[in-house]
């Protein structure tokens, strides 16, 4: 059972890593002026909710399977994702707003955030991998 949880987490984590990389690539494209803000933001906004769901599922799964440490590790990031999604002002087009993204260094902070998430997911990836192997061995 435990191995199933971690296998799922591992897959989910892989997806999240890919998503983070995608975010970083798209944002750096915008930074380098390869795409315009409108298309960049619409591309990214599409993936905000999947990312949020994917990460929340893992977090909840960890809670259910009573892996407290991993759950607590995931909790802040999951909370941040949800908070960011909820706090989007009603007039904005999403978490990434094309009219705002070039202002007040938002692009940089988005970039930083994506980087941090990538690091976090990589960390989680190895943790899940280790836990999965451990669980498989224990089985």
């Amino acid at each position, binding site marked *: 059972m435990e191995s199933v949880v971690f296998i799922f987490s591992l897959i989910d984590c892989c997806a999240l890593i890919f998503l983070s990389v995608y975010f970083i690539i798209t944002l750096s494209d915008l930074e380098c002026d390869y795409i*315009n*803000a*409108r298309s960049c933001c619409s591309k990214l906004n599409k993936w905000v909710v999947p990312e949020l769901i994917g990460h929340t599922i893992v977090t909840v799964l960890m809670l259910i399977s009573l892996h407290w440490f991993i759950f607590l590790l995931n909790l802040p990031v999951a909370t941040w994702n949800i908070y960011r999604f909820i706090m989007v*002002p009603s007039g904005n*087009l999403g978490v990434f707003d*094309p009219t705002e993204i*070039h*202002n007040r260094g938002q692009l940089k902070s988005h970039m930083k955030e994506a980087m941090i998430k990538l690091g976090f997911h990589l960390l989680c990836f190895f943790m899940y991998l280790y836990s999965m192997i451990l669980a498989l061995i224990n089985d």
Partner: protein
Amino acid sequence: MSAPAGIPPRPAAVPGGARAPVAAARPPPCQNGPVQNQMQFPFGYGLHLENYSASSRRYPPVPHEAVPSQLNNQYVADYHSACYSIPVQSVMTTSVGPSMLNTQQLYSGAPHPVESAGGLTQGAISSASHLHTSVPQSYSALSSHYSSSTSSSVASQGFPLSSGHYAMPTVSRAVYPNLSYPSMSVGSPYGQVFTSQSLPAVGQFEETNTFPDQSSTVPRTLQQQVPLGYNSTSWSTSDFQSAQDNFSRNNTGSLAKASNQINTVGIVDSSHPVSQNVQFTKPGVETSVVSSAVTSSIRTPVGDHLTEPASVPSNTQPSESLLQEAIDSSSTTSSASPVINNYDALEGGGYPETNSAASSPAPTPQTSRTPKPFGYGYPTLQPGYQNATPSTSAMQPSNPGHHSEFQQYPQYPGVNQLSSTLGGLSLQHSQQPESLRPVNLTQDRNILPVSPVLAPVPNLNSDLRKLNCSPDSFRCTLTNIPQTQALLNKAKLPLGLLLHPFRDLTQLPVITSSTIVRCRSCRTYINPFVSFIDQRRWKCNLCYRVNDVPEEFMYNPLTRSYGEPHKRPEVQNSTVEFIASSDYMLRPPQPAVYLFVLDVSHNAVEAGYLTIVCQSLLENLDKLPGDSRTRIGFITFDSTVQFYNLQEGLSQPQMLIVSDIDDVFLPTPDSLLVNLHESKELIKDLLNALPTMFINTRETHSALGPALQAAFKLMSPTGGRISVFQSQLPSLGAGLLHSREDPNQRSSTKVVQHLGPATDFYKKLALDCSGQQTAVDLFLLSSQYSDLASLACMSKYSAGCIYYYPSFHHSHNPAQAEKLQKDLKRYLTRKIGFEAVMRIRCTKGLSIHTFHGNFFVRSTDLLSLANVNPDAGFAVQMSIEESLTDTSLVCFQTALLYTSSKGERRIRVHTLCLPVVTSLADVYAGADVQAAVCLLANMAVDRSVSSSLSDARDALVNAVVDSLSAYISTASNLQQSSLIAPNSLRLFPLYVLALLKQKAFRTGTSTRLDDRIYAMCQIKSQPLVHLMKMIHPSLYRIDRLTNEGAIHVNDRVVPQPPLQKLSAEKLTREGAFLMDCGSIFYIWIGKSCDNSFIKDVLGYPNYASVPQKLTQLPELDTLSSERARSFISWLRDSRPLNPVLQVIKDESPAKTDFFQHLVEDRTEAAFSYYEFLLHIQQQICK
């Protein structure tokens, strides 16, 4: 103020005519002990406080009550479109024929004369051909938007007059200490500083550069009398002139040599008209016209400095001297250059500063080999002269303050040290002691200069300064750029640019060239600040790449000479316009396309705006900028969307109604936008019919969203301009809004909610439009809350503009109706640029942090502007990413690429060059307080939307507190007990206080949400000049206008009353005051105002008979009426949107509108200026 008896602790606004009383009113500066002075000020303020509280009791705010709409009456049976009842069909054809039109006799059809700069410009330019630069031709044709400019030589100067005139006080600054404190011991450090300043006034200029930031508070008389020891008691132009003459005559002998060598170089202000035909016969003596009028004239240096050979240094650093050399030689020789107006040595050498100050806003004494007439001394001013100074109210300025300061702190070491350090550190050859002179704000009460505040001049060498961009188009908050971000952080001042790129220019070099020379790596356009390494190579001033000079560029079409690339107009002017080739087009240039989307719901019809809009359109139909391809279309909407088929060949316009607003579609895609010229008759028919067509409508709903979607669909193939007229909250279909305003919260001091949009519909639409090169301009004519915060998005992100007419009604509110009419006239006829993009480039190391304005930021430095109009201003915040150690100059370049209404692709390029400094003191010395305040206002708008209003207010106050405390801590030996600001920032607290009391940011005073949002929109999109008027209006006393100091515009004498500070203390019951708030003029008439003023100017026998609502001054044949009218029309001419005039009697209820602008007074919810200063001081001491 209706109870002036207790008010003035010192005589307020003693008019220019009466000269004696100053000395009586003010303690003679040299005799007062410090103790007396100390006591005097608190006492004065104490008095004010009493009065303020009285005033706040007396003038309770008038509650803003929404005019109830009358939606439910007037249901008329013969409502024309019975077709609404047919549900199945969604498209209907209704005839809008003459049968409906026969009652149309509204239009007398006499079109108003409209100056169309755009037309002229483009007309001229399109005629210019092939490779030649069309500069000379276009100048003559470009003439001026402000039609006054060309007619006469002197008078043609237009507005610049003021600057020239106002710049006069500059002079006095240097001289000032000598006269004010004649008995001052030279040994005292305070005195020394000034003495050293006053020396340059004699002509020793190569070391002490100039005093750029001297919007002086010193009375004008001083400067005339003082240097000359001359006995003139008036300061009229003629006297001034004669004084000058006399002076020059007296000194010609000794200074003849100097007069040939000292060339006073005015800043090149290419935007101002040059009076080509002013003849100066006596170079040494002439000042008569110059002194008052020739602000804009450009003086080029005489060829005295050209002795150095134009050698080719091959070092990698930009060669300053070479650059200078190049510029020098070119400016003297290229006679075809537009800005050339060579007259040498014009202002009598011995005292050059006077004239340079009088003739240009930026006096730049430029002497390379000037003999220093050290021996020349000023006759000291005798005490008697001080009595003779005209007692304008603003003349008390700093005298008492300084004086007391001086006496209080006789051992005052700071300044001297400071300036000596400065001298060592500053960039080239100058120190700017004036802008750094510490001003004690709490004691120095009259800090507002008598004349408008001018932009500080960057501390560059005179050649670069001369070439630099006009501050009207391009201004930086810090004219000395700090070298590192750390230094900038220390200074606590915002760094940013304020742009007005598409300003109506009277003079603009237009360059037609097959190759536009640009840097190959950063794509910077070649500009005056590049350096030519040799004949064939130039070095980019932004990225330092060395580029080749193309063959074509070697030929100079102006001089018809070969091999002088540095004399090309591109390198001679910092503002140029290129006609772009097809490389700059993504598609063929679009035609001018105008679509009008009109609200015809009951509310709108009741307000009666349709008549005005249609009439304005009819009058200006021929003046709409465009060519033979111009297209126009109309959409009206209530609960359905109505289209108008205007296809040529139809006998009458056809109305097509689409009632399916959930999925709106175009009934006939190709005949809704029609060629203006081909279908002109149909369009006229429609415009005549429209106002009456819906007169009996019962439809109260407004489907704005679907109408906009339809408009977008209609416009997307071409792009163009959508003008939306909306009169209420959209209530149907996509983008419907709900009322979010709680009237009880209007005067809340706590949270102001709903500053942001409620829906993203309008933003999305705007971005779609922007992508299709369509701009949406919003005219909101509403009496109730209409959620401007949401609606404004459609214009904000599509580079449109927003106009708001609160409680508009054609008959109940004639002032608004008049305003709409005038705004429309300007709106319809002003220049327009389509499918524009603007890129802002800056020297490597600087980067743009945030943009402010109406546009969409497409990439890091590229702004997408679907339309650009001459009234749009922009602001950007900058940050310093890498330290600027390897450069002494930074440059900013904006390039605006647009399609003119004639279908030409054009690029307008502005380049600004600023010095880099390493010391904090230099940063403060170069601070441009107006630009800083405008940038802060922009930032505060962002903050209040993204965070909260109180956050934004705190941030504004903190900006002052931080910068002043940082300044105080740099000058550590300043006494901590008082609030000291550098002279350059002395108006900072005042402006920030004004900002806090501005509609956008005020709390506690009842402010409707829409009014607030509109003020915020304006802050974001207005250019600096207009924004400053909005923030800090100008107050003039106009009941005793005299011709003293008057300027001449178009053979008209325009009096120049001194600026009054915005305090009820300045109002007297006997006077009449004009307040210029940018978009509105108030004339306040005191209760016991002189009957002769009321009779001669207002045309009424006495005060009682003046009506409550007076919006015009009658044309009376009296001198005072003429003066008042010429002054007001002169003020009016200086801005694009015609301000409305409102005469306010002292007891009329409208006077709260007037009194709310008196920002220095206390209101029930906000500090007075003095309290604000104390508050800041408290914060600093914390």
